[in-house]
């Protein structure tokens, strides 16, 4: 962690600052996306940047996701460092050919002739964010995590968001930078001085000896809430935020599980085939002999996201669910 002077800013402001610094520091960096210019983006993440850097470096684009992704790559191949915003990650499905088939592969399949320093920034996730429904609230990180050649980042705090985005833009590989839209307003301490949070390094957000909880994004906060609650009940929960979903910081996770002998995995995305399965599988592969109990997974339901609050409330795990799962797990006699 950088020392230096800290202020409280929001997750959104932290991302905005990272973009502003990157634009100021490196003339090769530019932003592109729909309505990111004068309008400042659908969520306001790029607000003020068009005024500061102009329309060449903060480029408004037509609604053409696949071509935008291809164009970002092309610009990168000429030495630029594009940062593409896709308004909601749900719409990145239009661009996966370029992202999976080209961004992820060009360096390898061209035998190292090039690098692909492109960043896709996009908000994902739901959780009562405006009851947005099936096309505006998905958590799709698992798709990106499966593709060799991509890196995937998913910060849970303003500090991590700013530092990871700076690192992502400086990275020579394609990085998928996921923002949780329900966290844009969350506040946290962020240094005034520039800093980077290295990709591929998890953060132990809370230390504890009884059980390891792994959770990213908004779920990490639910896990922390559960941990705070359980502390009063005498259960010491260690909460690990992987921060980078790919490459995964296995060592931090394994060290924790070998200490606590119990793991709870939490993800917002639909259960089947999500990142928690990969976390669990790796723990089984590497820490089986240390496990005192089954690994527990909490996840979004395997359903499209419904609109009505009453239904939406059933889709995602919340801190009481996490607390309850931990209680049961800790009580388990092996």
């Amino acid at each position, binding site marked *: 962690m950088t020392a230096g002077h800290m202020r409280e800013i929001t997750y959104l402001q932290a991302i905005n600052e990272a973009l502003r610094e990157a634009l100021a520091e490196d003339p090769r960096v530019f932003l592109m996306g729909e309505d990111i210019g004068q309008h400042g983006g659908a969520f306001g993440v790029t607000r003020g940047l068009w005024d500061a850097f102009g329309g060449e470096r903060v480029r408004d684009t037509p609604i053409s996701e696949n071509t935008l992704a291809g164009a970002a790559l092309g610009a990168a191949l000429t030495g630029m460092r594009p940062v593409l915003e896709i308004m909601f990650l749900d719409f990145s499905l239009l661009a996966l050919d370029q992202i999976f088939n080209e961004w992820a592969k060009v360096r390898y399949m061209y035998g190292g002739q090039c690098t692909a320093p492109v960043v896709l920034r996009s908000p994902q996730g739901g959780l009562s964010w405006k009851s947005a429904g099936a096309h505006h609230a998905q958590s799709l990180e698992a798709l990106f995590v499966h593709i060799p050649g991509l890196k995937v980042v998913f910060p849970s705090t303003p500090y991590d968001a700013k530092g990871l985005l700076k690192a992502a833009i400086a990275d020579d590989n394609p990085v998928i930078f996921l923002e949780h839209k329900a966290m844009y307003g969350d506040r946290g301490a962020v240094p005034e001085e520039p800093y980077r949070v290295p990709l591929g390094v998890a953060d132990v957000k809370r230390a504890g000896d009884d059980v390891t909880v792994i959770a990213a994004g908004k779920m990490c906060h639910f896990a922390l809430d559960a941990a705070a609650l359980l502390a009063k009940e005498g259960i010491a929960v260690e909460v690990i935020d992987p921060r980078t979903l790919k490459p995964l910081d296995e060592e931090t996770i394994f060290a924790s599980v070998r200490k606590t002998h119990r793991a709870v995995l939490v993800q917002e995305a639909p259960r089947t085939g999500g990142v928690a399965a990969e976390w669990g599988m790796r723990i089984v592969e590497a820490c089986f002999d240390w496990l005192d109990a089954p690994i527990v997974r909490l996840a979004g339901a*395997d359903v499209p996201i419904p609109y009505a609050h009453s239904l939406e409330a059933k889709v995602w795990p919340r801190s009481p669910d996490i607390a309850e799962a931990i209680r049961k797990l800790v009580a388990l006699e092996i």
Partner: protein
Amino acid sequence: MTRSISTETLEQMYEIMWRIRRFEEAAGAFYQAGRVKGGIHASIGQEAVATGVCFALRPGDLITSTHRGHGHHIAKGADLNRLMAELLGKATGYNRGRGGSMHMAAFDVGSLGAFPVVAAGVPVAVGAALGIKMQEQDRVVVAFFGDGAMAQGTLHESINLAALAQAPVIFVCENNQFAVSTRPENSLAVRDKVQWATSYGIPAWSIDGQSVDAVYDTSAEAVERARAGGGPCFIEAMTYRFEGHYFGEPQVYRTREEVDVERRDRDPIARLHDRLLARGVEPTTLDALNQAASEAVEAAVAFAEAGPEPDPETFADEVYSP
């Protein structure tokens, strides 16, 4: 060609256009009251397009709609009560509360649904038209989409596929001058959409979308052609979005003046009002139609409010069909 729309039909249109506007206003009030949290994209100012197009359709004809789709559904004859209930996410809504504003669908009256992924409904409309053609039915399909959607590749793909297959689909671009904050000249390099569309070998028109007569006339011609086996065609309707992109949107990209001028000079309902007066319809008749529309929307609001929330326990039902 100008067809002579009967005064009676124009009166019906007048009421429908008021229904749309009142519905949107009610949606706006719900938004203001914090009763609807999802984004609501109102079609205020664009009522003549939905109405003129849908009046040229038969009940068995189909449409695909967009994130700005309330008007399309109302004009296609969907039940106001169930639309409003859906907006509130109630069990009594068309989608049983699972869709909300951006995913409305009314299969009972031929709406295959609103597709809020920009342009995503367009290929679905083409496929529906193919299905109709393969089944040798004389139905047609309308794909509604915006000026911003023109930039999506699937527009090109869809028009191409429809033209190759001579599928009975009418592509209706509602050019309301904005894609969020982006003006058409920054969305699309094509300046003349008619030239562009005709290059696919299909007829195309660019029309005044604030004149419900003009919309109806052109649509009727397009529909007749498609129904008779003449294949797809393209209509650009020039219109204007009076509200923000969604309720509560800041609108840094335009002046209040610009909007005021549009509202004053190009309100499609006011225009139709004047036209009906000129046809000799009594002001009281028009007031009564307006009043009827308001009452229908008020009844829909009451219905929606009275409806139950979906049972939380049903949240995982019907992901799959049995």
